[in-house]
């Protein structure tokens, strides 16, 4: 097998925009008897009013709870009887769906997707069951040190910005949402404009597109609202620390970080390579080496970069004994200082570049991996040849680029330090 010809590119990705605005991407994989159908649409949590935070998620999760043609049980009976799956999720900007089935059942997946989008009925009894499940999820979240540290972190870093809000809301906001709110949210925010569907597996692209057209090609929504513009993100003026207390826990979660780039920023690749050296490469990069390997303070200690349609965050996370929070925090701060003072050396850079290029085929071996790649291309307008150009994009990054990106985003004196635990 040749590495280059196994990567998706213009030669084997099919892309078509339907007259109603839905973009369809498809790539076949006839080694597989199954198929993945994944995509995203505009109805994200950005549209949530503060007092009804969680509305987008509640609405999205209601779609499969009953349609004009089928009850909740009938929908899942159709899916599960053939070993298929279809699920929905909500992000800040967009919401998404992910389904898979044997190839022969793709029409079923698309049929259910179409029903869920165009004919949901929000049955009252099901809405209350779902509400209880969402509220229980929030009770469990309140006890999860990782989730709570992350919420505290976002709350400080993105203060006054919609990114500061958790998409799953709060118990008091979920309790306020009425069935009419769900119906209205669906009417105003669901529609074909901005929707993208990727189909990957043992099906020809033309056939996949034909099936998509039949299922949702005729869908039109005049009332679909435009996505609101976002306010700018305010930079931190100094380091802000906060500890959220959760009694009775044996471990605390710690997150230290700041703002990061958008996916489309020119510094993204350099920041991404820098992040890999900082807290991913090998056994979690420099952070893992200092916090886990040398000090034995944590089972996990790593850094991550979340770059999306808007500015993301650049954060270091660790799970440590409650008594070691300060110690781990000091070690991480030292590493961040070193990172922005010294940058990365030539060996580290070469290692990470090889890692980025080498691991690409692994991320693209399953239908789900390829579907994610196609959606990534579309969401960030990377070009159909992105994965074939990828090696070049990685290799042109210099140590100076990494240092510039690190200094642009990370100021060791202006960080958020969030912890949750006893």
């Amino acid at each position, binding site marked *: 097998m040749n590495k280059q010809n196994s990567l998706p590119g213009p030669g084997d990705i099919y892309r078509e925009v339907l007259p109603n605005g839905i973009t369809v991407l498809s790539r076949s994989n006839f080694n597989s008897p199954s198929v993945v159908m994944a995509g995203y649409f505009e109805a994200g949590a950005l549209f949530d009013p503060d007092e009804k935070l969680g509305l987008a998620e509640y609405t999205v999760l209601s779609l499969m709870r009953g349609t004009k043609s089928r009850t909740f049980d009938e929908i899942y009976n159709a899916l599960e009887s053939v070993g298929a799956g279809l699920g929905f999720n909500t992000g800040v900007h967009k919401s998404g769906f992910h389904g898979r089935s044997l190839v022969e059942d793709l029409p079923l997946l698309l049929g259910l997707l179409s029903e869920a989008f165009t004919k949901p009925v929000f049955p009252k009894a099901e809405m209350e069951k779902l509400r209880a499940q969402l509220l229980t999820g929030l009770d469990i979240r309140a006890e999860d040190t990782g989730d709570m540290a992350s919420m505290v972190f976002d709350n400080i870093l993105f203060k006054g910005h919609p990114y500061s809000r958790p998409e799953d809301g709060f118990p008091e906001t979920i309790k306020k949402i009425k069935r009419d709110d769900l119906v209205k949210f669906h009417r105003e925010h669901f529609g074909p404009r901005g929707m993208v569907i990727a189909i990957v597996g043992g099906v020809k692209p033309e056939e996949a597109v034909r099936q998509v057209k039949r299922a949702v090609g005729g869908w039109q929504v005049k009332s679909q609202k435009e996505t609101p513009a976002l306010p700018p993100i305010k930079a931190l003026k100094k380091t802000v620390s906060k500890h959220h207390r959760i009694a009775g826990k044996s471990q605390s979660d710690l997150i230290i970080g700041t703002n990061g780039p958008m996916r489309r920023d020119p510094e993204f690749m350099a920041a991404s390579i820098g992040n890999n050296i900082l807290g991913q490469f090998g056994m979690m990069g420099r952070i893992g080496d200092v916090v886990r390997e040398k000090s034995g303070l944590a089972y996990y200690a790593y850094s991550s970069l979340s770059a999306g349609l808007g500015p993301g965050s650049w954060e270091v996370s660790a799970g440590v004994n409650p008594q070691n929070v300060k110690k781990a925090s000091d070690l991480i701060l030292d590493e961040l200082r070193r990172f922005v003072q010294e940058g990365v050396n030539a060996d580290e850079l070469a290692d990470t570049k090889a890692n980025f290029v*080498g691991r690409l085929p692994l991320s693209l071996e399953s239908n789900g991996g390829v579907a994610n790649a196609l959606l990534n291309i579309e969401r960030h307008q990377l070009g159909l040849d992105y994965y074939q150009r990828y090696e070049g994009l990685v290799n042109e990054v210099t140590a100076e680029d990494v240092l510039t990106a690190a200094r642009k985003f990370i100021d060791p004196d202006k960080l958020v330090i969030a912890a949750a635990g006893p």
Partner: protein
Amino acid sequence: MKDPLIQTTLSNGLKVLLKEVHTAPIISSWLWYRVGSRDEVQGRTGVSHWVEHMQFKGTEQFPANILDKAISREGGTWNAFTYIDWTAYFETMPAAKIDLALRLESDRMSNSRFIPEEVASERTVIVSEREGSENEPLFRLGEAVQQTAFRIHPYHHEVIGDMADLHSMTRDDLYNHYRTFYVPNNAIMAMAGDFDTESMLARIRELFESIPAGDEPARLARPEPAQNGEVRLSVEGPGTTSYVQVCYRFPAASHPDFFPLSVLDSLLAGPSNLNMFSGGISNKTSRLYRALVDKEYVVSVHGGAQATIDPFMYTITMTIHPRRKPEEALAAFDKEIQRIKDERVTKEEITRAIKQARALFAYGSENITNQGFWLGYAEMFADYSWFESYLEKLSAVTVRDVQRVANEYLKPQSRVIGTYVPLDGKA
């Protein structure tokens, strides 16, 4: 799953399974050792898992920080798992780079150093791993249920080990365990991916066959006696959500009843997923979901049996609805169990379970790492044909079989019921 598979055993006892799959320029290599928490006595619980951690600390030839960088540099991914019955190490690499993984595995089969300072720093890492698990109500509950279900058999402790042992075990305890169980005659090398079988086998011989066989490791022979009476327990802890686990004894994976029980599980709680690297499907039309979640006794229910060497557990986990008491959920659960014992299931339900299993196999086969996993996994408790004939054996299950095993295995007197009692901020 009918691609050609080569199986052979080297002169030192190392079993080798090779399966060419040319769908992507990737190879996944798995080295399995027949050692897990089942091989641990009290005072040294968790030793297998800790040894697995030490296997990442390096040899003379591949010192620690060289080792992980080398794999990552080549674009590979690697990890290891310790389970009650086995310990497995895998590397999935671009096909042209797999030799690095083979050299590494042959080296660390006998040359890991277990330097005292590194044992010491890893001790606190593993303590931290356990503390992270203890943060989870379901870990605390599951541990209590398991140690109640197994008093004699070493399945009674968690793979990570008891905290007391994690503090007291010595470097020599770890090293002795390593030397005893990490011998070629106690291991299986399984590979799937884009290679030529003949030359790959030659390379494996070159790297592994010179490693001398060791003594056949002694095994603890402490079968768990029958349980004669239901046991109920509770675990208190932080939070506001209650959980209930009901745990029945299940037979070994090699037992013929394992297959009708898999169908039973699929009907009750949704299909179990035998893929390690590919998720399962939802269970919203399983009998327990309809009876418990739809009726709002619980907000979620999951069941699962695991394929094991000795008889282990079938555990159903319920997250209790905030307006219900655990006893109410349990009463509704018992009604559903009684129904499957009293009334025959339909042929259609069995056909459905088989189609679900077929789809899950299809999803798992997309991924070379998962295919590599399958090869060796079944060898740990049966052999690869267990996998190859899995769908066939499920297809042979009759409605009568399902009713029989429901009555035989889902007995109240041989179950443990654990309840997590949330202290609601009073912790």
